[in-house]
């Protein structure tokens, strides 16, 4: 798949799973790997990029064992970006389905 397109979609997925619940880095990878092929190891760079764009904030939480964990939490700007992305994505998919057939499963 076109990597630029894939990157955009993965960004949306990362925004989405973190909007559901705060997560630490590896948890995000695990969550996405469950449903899609993410062996291209782009997740952490995405987390870092989106954090730099102030779409996530970071806080640390003590764990039972050893070092505190870094959690990612979505910001208002992040929620807004996610809504925009989902909107664009749906419009895009609808268009694709009109061309090649198939339906949106909601």
């Amino acid at each position, binding site marked *: 798949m076109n990597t630029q397109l894939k990157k955009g979609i993965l960004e949306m997925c990362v925004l989405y799973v973190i909007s559901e619940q705060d997560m630490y880095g590896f948890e995000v990878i695990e969550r996405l790997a469950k449903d899609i092929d993410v062996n291209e190891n*782009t997740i952490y760079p995405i987390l*870092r990029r989106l954090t730099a764009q102030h779409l996530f904030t970071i806080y640390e939480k003590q764990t039972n064992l050893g070092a505190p964990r870094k959690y990612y939490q979505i910001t208002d700007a992040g929620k807004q970006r996610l809504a925009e992305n989902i909107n664009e994505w749906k419009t895009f998919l609808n268009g694709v389905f009109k061309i090649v057939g198939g339906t949106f499963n909601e």
Partner: protein
Amino acid sequence: MNKKQYLDNLNDALVAHQVKTEEIKDILSDYEQMYDDALERGLTDEDVSNLLGKPKQVYEELRDTLSQKSSKRHQDKIIALTPFIAVITFMLIGLTTDIWHPTWMVFLLIPITAILLNTSKKEKIVALSPFVAIIIFMLVGTYTSYWNPTWLIFLIVPIASMIYEKNNVKRIFFIGSLLIASGFYLIMGYVYHDFMIGLFGFLLPAIVILYFAELKFEVIIKDPLKRKNGIIFFMIIVLSLAAFLSLGLFAAGWGYSWMFVLLIPISSIFLFDKSKKITPFMPFVAVIIFYSLGYFFGLFEISWIAFLLIPIVAVIENS
């Protein structure tokens, strides 16, 4: 690759690209945490490095989120200036003294500066060695005509690639056998006046290489691509050295046959470097184009333009 090696390699990749120290610290601690989390889930080291990405790829992915030390931007400017400095120096010395050869070697400043400023310590020595060898070989050869045995200087290339070998036995045997072979070659040549017999001394390092390749055979045999590349590389080494030495010894062609030796670094980049870019080849290609046109057609005054291919290709490919 275990956790420590993985993090060390990642650190090297980031340091080599002059990423700011605090960002490196931040990234490394994040990767350490993810690595620990992955191990806790029962993944093997190999799984983890597949999942998190090879350190060099990680750098490529992270690239647009990183800020570089300000000295890095400064260095890029210096690298961009070297082609102009080289052209001006070359023209000035060439026009005033008419010594185009070996003045052309100022063009080697372009790749040498880029290597000095852009690679990590370990890579630096290996990457610089072919250029250092060319410079010494050409200067000594041109001014003293001792092309033989000065060609032995090219052995610093395999020796440089072995300096950081972790396996002590392998390193000592490799470097030792090359030095013994060189000694044997010199003794046979100067004491017994037979360089040809002296060449047989190089069977010793060849055997050492084959022996250690044998140890790796089980790994290599499982990966047909690596095996194929290994065999091709070995054949290129043997053939290019044979071409270089026979043209030099029998046809007195030292002045041009050394270009065959460049096939070795060229093919190693082509066969083993994952990034499929043209930029790393350019210094060697430029040297060959420039020198062939100059040596065979007497076009040194014009053929230096070939060196401008180095920065041009780098700019086009990396923009």
